[in-house]
């Protein structure tokens, strides 16, 4: 036992060093990707520790601070209801990150189920599913989301559902393609020859081989989802006020007072752009490292 402990510690430190080396290598090979990872990390910290980072609550009205320009007291200024813009931006990260991660998780699960089953079972099932996906993809994304949002009504969960519905259709096409490629491999043929059932072939042989594709789609999808959520909030179909969402902050009072208090319109948009930029950079770099065949997708 006495010997086992240092061996375990040694193993742990080796794993730690290997991990740091991998991250270091990634940062050297893909500096833009590393920059994206830092931005994404900062967004995550803001979203999780919003209460500790933001100096004020997202709906706190500060006496005598209506539409104040950025200063030491209020880094990003205040809005028409005397609320601190920096605090609202920090809390806004929570909405964007929640919508992003929930949507992508839901979309990827649905896309994997549709894409893998469509490729694996083929036949009539594949034909029907693919025609529905075709029809769904012919709609301009904002138009179909607006129609779905009009059905579901505004709210965080409905934004997630409508965006996931659209992303799932797009992603299922790519996952179907990756599964079809994996199915050509001899190990699938071997598994079949050994008498493996459908569930075993899908779970043990196909899914692990399309995981890289799924991870890449998820990372790239996060940026797109945050952008789409902001557009929905801008059009008034997003998270209802007073909850701060970056897109919502840009519409309404943000636009009404944009000439008198430009910071009300500038900072929320900068936050959206920075977050999406971070996810896109990271997604691009991950795609190049994990699966260069997807370049350009």
């Amino acid at each position, binding site marked *: 036992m006495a010997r086992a402990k240092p061996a375990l510690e040694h193993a742990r430190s080796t794993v730690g060093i290997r991990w740091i080396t991998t991250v270091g290598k990634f940062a050297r090979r893909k500096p833009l990707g590393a920059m994206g990872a830092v931005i994404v990390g900062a967004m995550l910290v803001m979203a999780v520790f919003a209460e500790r980072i933001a100096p004020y609550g997202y709906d706190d009205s500060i006496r005598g601070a209506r539409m104040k320009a950025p200063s030491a007291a209020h880094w990003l200024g205040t809005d028409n209801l005397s609320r601190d813009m920096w605090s609202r931006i920090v809390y806004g990260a929570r909405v964007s990150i929640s919508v992003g991660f929930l949507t992508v998780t839901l979309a990827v699960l649905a896309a994997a189920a549709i894409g893998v089953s469509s490729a694996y079972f083929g036949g009539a099932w594949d034909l029907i599913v693919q025609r529905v996906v075709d029809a769904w993809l012919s709609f301009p994304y904002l138009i179909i989301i607006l129609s779905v949002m009009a059905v579901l009504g505004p709210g965080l969960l409905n934004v997630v559902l409508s965006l996931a519905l659209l992303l799932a259709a797009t992603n299922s096409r790519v996952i179907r393609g990756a599964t079809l490629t994996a199915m050509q491999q001899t190990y699938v043929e071997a598994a079949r020859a050994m008498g493996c059932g459908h569930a075993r072939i899908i779970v043990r042989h196909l899914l692990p081989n399309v995981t890289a594709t799924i991870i890449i789609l998820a990372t790239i999808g996060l940026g797109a989802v945050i952008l789409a959520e902001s557009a929905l909030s801008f059009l008034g179909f997003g998270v209802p006020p007073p909850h701060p969402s970056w897109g919502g902050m840009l519409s309404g009072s943000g636009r009404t007072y944009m000439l008198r208090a430009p910071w009300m319109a500038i900072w929320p948009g900068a936050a959206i752009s*920075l977050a999406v930029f971070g996810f*896109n950079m990271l997604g691009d770099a991950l795609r190049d490292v994990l699966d260069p065949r997807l370049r350009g997708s």
Partner: protein
Amino acid sequence: MLKRYVAKRLLVAIPSLLIASLIVFTLPRLIPGDAVQLMLSEKAYARDLAELRAKLGLDRPLYVQYVDWLGHVARGDLGESLWTRRPVLEEIGQRLPVTLTLAAFALTFALVIALPVGVLSAARQDTPADFVARSAAILGLSVPGFWLATLLIVLPAIWWGWRPVSEFVEFQADPAGYLRQMLLPALILGIAASAALMRLTRGMLLEVLRQDYVRTAWAKGLAERAIVLKHGLRNAIIPVVTLLGTQLPQIIGGTVVIETVFGLPGMSRFLFDAINQRDYPVIQGVNLLVVSTVVLVNLAVDALYAVLDPRIRY
């Protein structure tokens, strides 16, 4: 051969279009709240809801309404707007030129920006110019159009006191003014599309420039311009044309926001208002038109391959 290919593709597109028509028809009917209720509450006097529903044909079973609607669509009749009581086709016809001009300008801007930058970025791979172009492309994909629009209105107003004209200029009144007012919104739409096109142009060109025949061209002593543009770009352009086709729905989707921000009376804004007013025939009509256009444009893009690459035969 091409004719047979187009006919075959049209046949494949029919089920997709039928499914799309079903989505187009069903979706607005799932919107909570009833157009009839909304219409009556607008008027001060009370009316019999059932009577109005029967008059508008909304009391029949859904499948009967669908088949009836599809029959009318096949004859070129998209119905009447529940609000203005005018034919939907006529309403769309009035607004379509605005959206089409916007989309055409946006596609032109996208190509004018994307092709030279993509080519330069590939020809000067891993140089500072390439790095700047790639970062700018990702930035272009990351910046929301409505924010860019806001900045382009706010910043010139603050710096130079310049404000864009807020009143819409009709084409008949002042053709030059009509086109001028489209430039800024189209540029904003074009920037996002150009980012995706530029990335693909660069990626495809880089792949082509590594081919043996390009090395042969270098060995023959051809000028760089001829190698990159004649031997490289011509062979790299097909996926770019495909993407150009898939950018159309993105651009039309983007017009919803841009027409709202710039107050342009286009088709997308008309649809946005119709969704808020639950004007079923308008929602169905506009969506069906958009989806059919997208399907036909993709078909045209496929047919264009043969023109761009003589090796492709259908």
